């Protein structure tokens, strides 16, 4: 007597038989037949032919039969829209049934029938049901509005259902409130700007009351909705937190996590010295730990979220390391997540325990897990300096096991440890070299080659080792090839006498026999370097490397903030902003954490900026080698500011970039505090011959570069008459094959234009100037701000005795000299004047900030006018902040001093934008690419020492840029943004 019998009727003529049974007079037979139909539908058989017969069964007072017919309708209405109309009458009738269960069922089912014609008939019953006396019907109707909105949004708006829905937030029944919130949130998701959930203290209060009384699912909807609210002040924030905390003890983990989200967000607003703040921190730990004793699927989601939470607030779980210890029978996806969190929580206090655990894991069965455990040991070494020695010896123990993948993984991390602690653990190199033959993975081979190259002087047979790799050069992966090239060049620079042949061999392999442009480019760069100036080559290739940071793979702060606002969602599982992956989320709004309380200080003080510790390097007149290379690096070789150097990526270009840095150029990056060279080069004809750099100022172009290259007598000349030190490198290989690459290289650099200067506008019309018309603009030329004016005499008499004066203004602009109008201005004559300005004049805050009041005098009268200068005139040439300083400053500036702007319709690539901005002294410090979105981190310094930090987000294919500005003097943000827009659009 089970339902499985319905699945077994497969004989012919089945449909015919069913038809007969559906039309039977016996109720029981009918019901059985409908059950059979449903079963057939479940297994995918087409029973749509029975549509009219099934719909005929709809008019029944047997609720079960009715439900089954509804089920059938939902499935087939779309394919039989005309017949579905037949059902409408019954629906409408059912919506008036005395039994609320039937009313609700009818309105609910109608909402699920996605046929336009039916939706029209749905409106009236739905309107009644939304105001039904029975809350069960009201709550069902609320959800129905969301369904209807999905089918026909316009209809819902026209019928005023949205307002009714909003009214339901104040319903007396908590379940109705919860469903109304859920429906509104769903609708709001597809209309990000509709402001449907207009949250104010009154509605918040209603939600908080309903929160205590509705079902667990309703609580989740309400909590998620609360998380979108921004409290007015810290007191309101605290009171909401207090009312949300009991949810942390709920048995439903989704309720718990949504409550955690609300608390994590609102906590940002609480002053840290508040007692309640500490209490709240303590209350957050136990529920998070409890989530880890739930089913593995729940654990996984919890762990992904905890990963975010420990990055934002490590103090919450710092004593709970042990709950993240991996259990033998955890599913692998839980194991890997736990490991990640263990490393994040590792500190000097618990490192011994952590290491013991990791060593244990390294002997487990699962290969992926073992690898990650070994890698984790390396990360511990880098993170907790005191443990480095112990980590290294643990790794050596593991290498002794000779288990192939353990050894390879260990070598990769030991390379990182060398980068972090140079000249400390090199004694282990011998052990590493013993395992050379067993390495078969590119990453491990590359790491080993890097080690050999880096410590070539201490390894007696370094040349033999590298030579052995060279034999199969073309079979190696790009990663290994690039690393091998760099390593051999290093070896050559260290031991030039014995390794000429080797270096020649590798350079020719890289430049002539390879199809890989990255490899060829790098080969040529080394080649030129070595042949032109070996001393410089040595400085470049063997330069000291910056230490790698422990901050590897931390999530970038802005993203982290956004993700914290999305705790518990898919975004938090993928660690990506929702906009990056949720399909159909039209213009999801970026959520941000609220700023903390009491950080409203924003007095415009020139000192705050320089306090950030930017170096006051004098502007370099002559670009050094560093500049040129810095230039190259500025392309997009610059790795993201927050990630440390290796682990090397696998993509070709990125890889080349990283490795190039590894090869020694990165040191130049690290200490490059000089202003970027490009704008200077345009003004300094005496730039020396560096590499093949030609001293051709503004019209420096790829063609020039090529010509210049050709001009250097096809390199052969350089080789033929080598400078003394280069004698050791008698290159003679032809080079023609590589020229194209160099063209490419040049093409990629692109020249930034000079600072942007707006077109002249009329400041003083002749009408007001008694015949004197002044139009003008501002420009920054060679570091000097100029007011460029055209004076036109439209009067009948000659004008003489010109003078100019400024009122006090925001940035202390003042004429640096007198207005030079030497000859009298005759009628209908115009002259151009350029007035240099200084920024040391008296200061008074103007509104708008960049307003300038000017008085011009001549023999006729004194005229007053005001004009606005683009604030980019004030951007000084040494506005490039050091990365570390940038990072620190960015974190340091409170979030409420952040302003976000959109630049619409800007069709530039991020590199072009960066170049353009650089021309106006907005310097790109780092660039990173996340999911097709380029983020440029930029700094700018105003003439009065105020620093402005910016994050420019450029989404490929999207002409709208987002600029996020952070500054200790937030007032300037608007002006700076205007400059951004002006520069980018001109």
């Amino acid at each position, binding site marked *: *007597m089970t*339902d*499985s019998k*319905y*699945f077994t009727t497969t004989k012919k003529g089945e449909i015919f038989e069913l038809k007969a049974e559906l039309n039977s007079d*016996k109720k029981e037979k009918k019901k059985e037949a409908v059950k059979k139909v*449903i*079963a057939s539908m*479940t297994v995918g058989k087409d029973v749509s032919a029975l549509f009219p017969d099934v719909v005929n069964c709809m008019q029944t007072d*047997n609720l*079960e*039969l009715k*439900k*089954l017919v509804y*089920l059938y309708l939902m499935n087939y209405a779309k394919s039989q829209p005309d017949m579905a109309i037949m059902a409408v009458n019954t629906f409408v009738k059912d919506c008036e049934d005395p039994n609320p*269960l039937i009313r609700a069922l009818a309105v*609910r089912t109608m909402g*699920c029938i996605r046929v336009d014609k039916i939706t029209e008939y749905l409106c009236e019953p739905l309107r009644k049901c939304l105001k039904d006396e029975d809350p069960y019907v009201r709550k069902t109707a609320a959800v129905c509005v969301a*369904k209807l909105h999905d089918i026909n949004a316009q209809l819902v708006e026209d019928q005023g259902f949205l307002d009714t829905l909003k009214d339901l937030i104040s319903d007396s029944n908590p379940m109705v409130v919860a469903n109304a919130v859920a429906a509104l949130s769903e609708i709001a*998701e597809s209309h990000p700007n509709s402001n449907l959930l207009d949250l104010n203290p009154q509605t918040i209060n209603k939600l908080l009351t309903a929160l205590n009384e509705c*079902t*667990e*699912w309703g609580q989740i909807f309400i909590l*998620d909705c609360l998380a979108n609210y921004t409290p007015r002040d810290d007191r309101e924030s605290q009171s909401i937190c207090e009312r949300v905390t009991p949810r942390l*003890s*709920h*048995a439903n*983990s*989704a309720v718990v996590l*949504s409550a955690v989200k609300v608390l994590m967000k609102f906590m940002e607003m609480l002053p840290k010295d508040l007692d309640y703040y500490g209490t709240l921190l303590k209350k957050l730990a*136990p529920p998070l*730990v*409890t989530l880890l*004793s739930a*089913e*593995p*699927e*729940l654990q*996984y*989601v919890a762990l992904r979220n905890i990963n975010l939470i420990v990055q934002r607030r490590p103090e919450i779980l710092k004593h709970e390391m*042990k*709950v993240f*210890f991996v*259990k033998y*029978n955890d*599913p692998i*996806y839980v194991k890997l997540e736990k490991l990640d969190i263990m490393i994040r929580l590792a500190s000097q206090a618990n490192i011994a325990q952590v290491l013991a*655990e990791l060593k*244990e894991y390294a*002997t487990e069965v699962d290969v992926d897990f073992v690898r990650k455990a070994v890698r984790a040991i390396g990360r511990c070494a880098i993170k907790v300096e005191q443990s480095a020695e112990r980590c290294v010896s643990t790794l050596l123990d593991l290498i002794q096991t000779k*288990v192939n993948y353990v050894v390879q993984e260990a070598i990769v991390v030991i390379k990182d440890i060398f980068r972090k602690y140079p000249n400390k653990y090199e004694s282990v190199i011998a052990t590493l070299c013993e395992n050379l033959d067993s390495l078969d993975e590119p990453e491990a081979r590359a790491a080993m080659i890097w080690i050999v190259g880096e410590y070539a002087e201490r390894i007696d047979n370094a040349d033999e080792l590298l030579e052995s790799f060279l034999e199969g050069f073309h079979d190696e992966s790009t990663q290994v090839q690039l690393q091998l090239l760099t390593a051999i060049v290093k070896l050559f620079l260290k031991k030039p006498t014995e390794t000429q042949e080797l270096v020649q061999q590798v350079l020719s392999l890289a430049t002539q026999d390879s199809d890989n442009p990255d490899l060829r480019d790098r080969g040529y760069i080394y080649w030129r370097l070595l042949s032109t100036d070996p001393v410089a080559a040595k400085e470049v290739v063997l330069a000291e490397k910056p230490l790698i940071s422990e901050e590897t793979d931390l999530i970038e702060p802005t993203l982290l903030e956004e993700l914290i606002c999305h705790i*518990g*969602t*898919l975004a938090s599982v*993928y660690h990506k902003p929702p906009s990056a*992956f*949720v*399909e*159909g989320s039209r213009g*999801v709004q970026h959520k941000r954490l609220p700023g903390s309380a009491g950080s409203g200080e924003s007095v415009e003080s020139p000192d705050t900026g320089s306090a950030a510790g930017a170096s006051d390097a004098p502007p370099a007149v002559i670009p050094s080698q560093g500049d040129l290379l810095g230039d190259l690096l500025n392309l997009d070789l610059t790795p993201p500011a927050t990630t440390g150097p290796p682990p090397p990526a696998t993509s070709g270009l990125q890889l080349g970039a990283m490795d190039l840095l590894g090869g020694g150029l990165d040191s130049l990056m690290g200490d490059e505090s000089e202003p970027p060279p490009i704008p200077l080069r345009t003004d300094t004809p005496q730039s020396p011959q560096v590499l093949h750099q030609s001293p051709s100022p503004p019209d420096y172009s790829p063609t020039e570069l090529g010509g210049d290259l050709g001009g250097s007598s096809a390199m052969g000349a350089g080789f033929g008459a080598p400078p003394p030190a280069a004698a050791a490198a008698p290159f003679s290989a032809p080079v023609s094959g590589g020229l194209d690459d160099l063209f490419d290289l040049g093409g990629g650099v692109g020249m930034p234009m000079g600072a942007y200067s707006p077109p002249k506008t009329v400041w003083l019309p002749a009408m007001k100037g008694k015949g004197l018309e002044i139009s003008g603009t501002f420009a920054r030329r060679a570091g000097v701000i100029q007011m460029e004016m055209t004076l036109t005499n439209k009067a009948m008499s000659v004008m003489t005795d010109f003078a100019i004066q400024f009122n006090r203004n925001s940035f202390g602009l003042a004429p640096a000299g007198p207005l030079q109008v030497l000859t009298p201005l005759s009628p209908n004559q115009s002259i151009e004047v350029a007035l240099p300005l200084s920024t040391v004049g008296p200061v008074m805050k103007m509104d708008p900030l960049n307003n300038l009041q000017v008085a011009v005098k001549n023999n006729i009268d004194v005229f007053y006018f005001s004009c606005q200068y683009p604030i980019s005139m004030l951007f000084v040439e040494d506005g490039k902040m050091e990365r570390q300083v940038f990072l620190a400053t960015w974190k340091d500036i409170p979030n409420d001093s952040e302003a976000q702007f959109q630049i619409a319709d800007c069709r530039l690539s991020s590199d072009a934008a960066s170049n353009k901005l650089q021309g106006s002294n907005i310097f790109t410090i780092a660039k990173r690419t996340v999911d097709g979105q380029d983020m440029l981190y930029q700094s700018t310094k105003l003439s009065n020492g105020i620093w402005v930090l910016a994050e420019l987000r450029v989404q490929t294919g999207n002409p709208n840029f987002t600029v996020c500005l952070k500054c200790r003097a937030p007032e300037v943000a608007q002006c700076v943004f205007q400059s951004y827009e002006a520069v980018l659009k001109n």
Partner: protein
Amino acid sequence: MIHSLFLAKEKAGDPENVAPVLQTPHHYLISIYRDKLFFVSVTQTEVPPLFVIEFLHRVADTFQDYFGECSESVIKDNTVTVYELLEEMLDNGFPLATESNVLKEMIRPPTILRSVVNTLTGGSNVGGTLPTGQLSNVPWRRVGVKYTNNEAYFDVIEEIDAILDKSGTTVFAEIQGVIEACVKLSGMPDLTLSFMNPRLLDDVSFHPCVRFKRWESERVLSFIPPDGNFRLLSYHVSSQNLVAIPVYVKQNISFLETGSCGRLDITIGPKQTMGKMVESLMVTIPMPKSVLNVNLIATQGTYTFDLSTKVLLWDIGKLNPQKLPNLRGSLSVQPGAPKPEENPSINIDLKIQQLAISGLKVSRLDMYGEKYKPFKGVKYVTKAGKFQVRT
């Protein structure tokens, strides 16, 4: 779409290792794996995955509750009820009724008797009236409950999760406790459960019926119980408190560097049992894949070795403190295979009746709101959860 789930399963090898959230080109698959079945939900928009996972577990719980088990055949046998249940539980992605007592009022669980009666009379298993719990402030309880024997039983069940290292030192230990209740009381009883030592409970999750405010202020559990079986409370005694470990394990599993054999020697003895008997003691050891067979002698109980999964299972039974159980002998390893790299871990199962190892004790249960006198009872049991000894 579902194909990607199968792909993921193939890749993971073990279905338990399939990640619960999967991304396909157009959808997200959120799944749980329970009783050898995948319960999958498909979404296209941003949704809290925990919400979905919790709901899926609730669906599986409901099937279990309705049909006694949750398997492929049971679901097929009850398709129509399953459909009706899903209809009642979910509406267009919004959960509706997930409380078992509410559901049972709307859709009666199948019993053999009822299906016979229904067949004869043409009756239905769908209730025709609005369930009373659906909208009340106590949605978990229906009105008009009546019993001839009024009784309330509480089981305090604690599981020890622990990792012990080679030398027997505790690396990590914590207790997961639950209080399962079986309450069959007429009317609308209002219960208060108090503990001798409520301080132990600093990390708790409550059934929605528990009044949180009273717990916060007085540390007593005050609630109007659902009818029937439910989990009143789950709690967690963290690794920072000292957790008593009831048994110790002396073990030596070694493989010879050369040659094709290894040795195994395991003895188990009582440690902190609070004077109670350790029962249902069982040892499970997943052996390295290269182990071909075992040749052991157990002083107590029986052992089996599964040749395909390489799992050694030693069923000991009661632990006699006077005569400690021992298992020893040799392991034969595939000739020529290298010495196994991993150290097998020893997993222990055990049960101690009449003891909550954390020391938690119920002091009293009071009932208000009804006049009759119920039977009351509290039972304690401690079990091993994920109790693992490293070798």
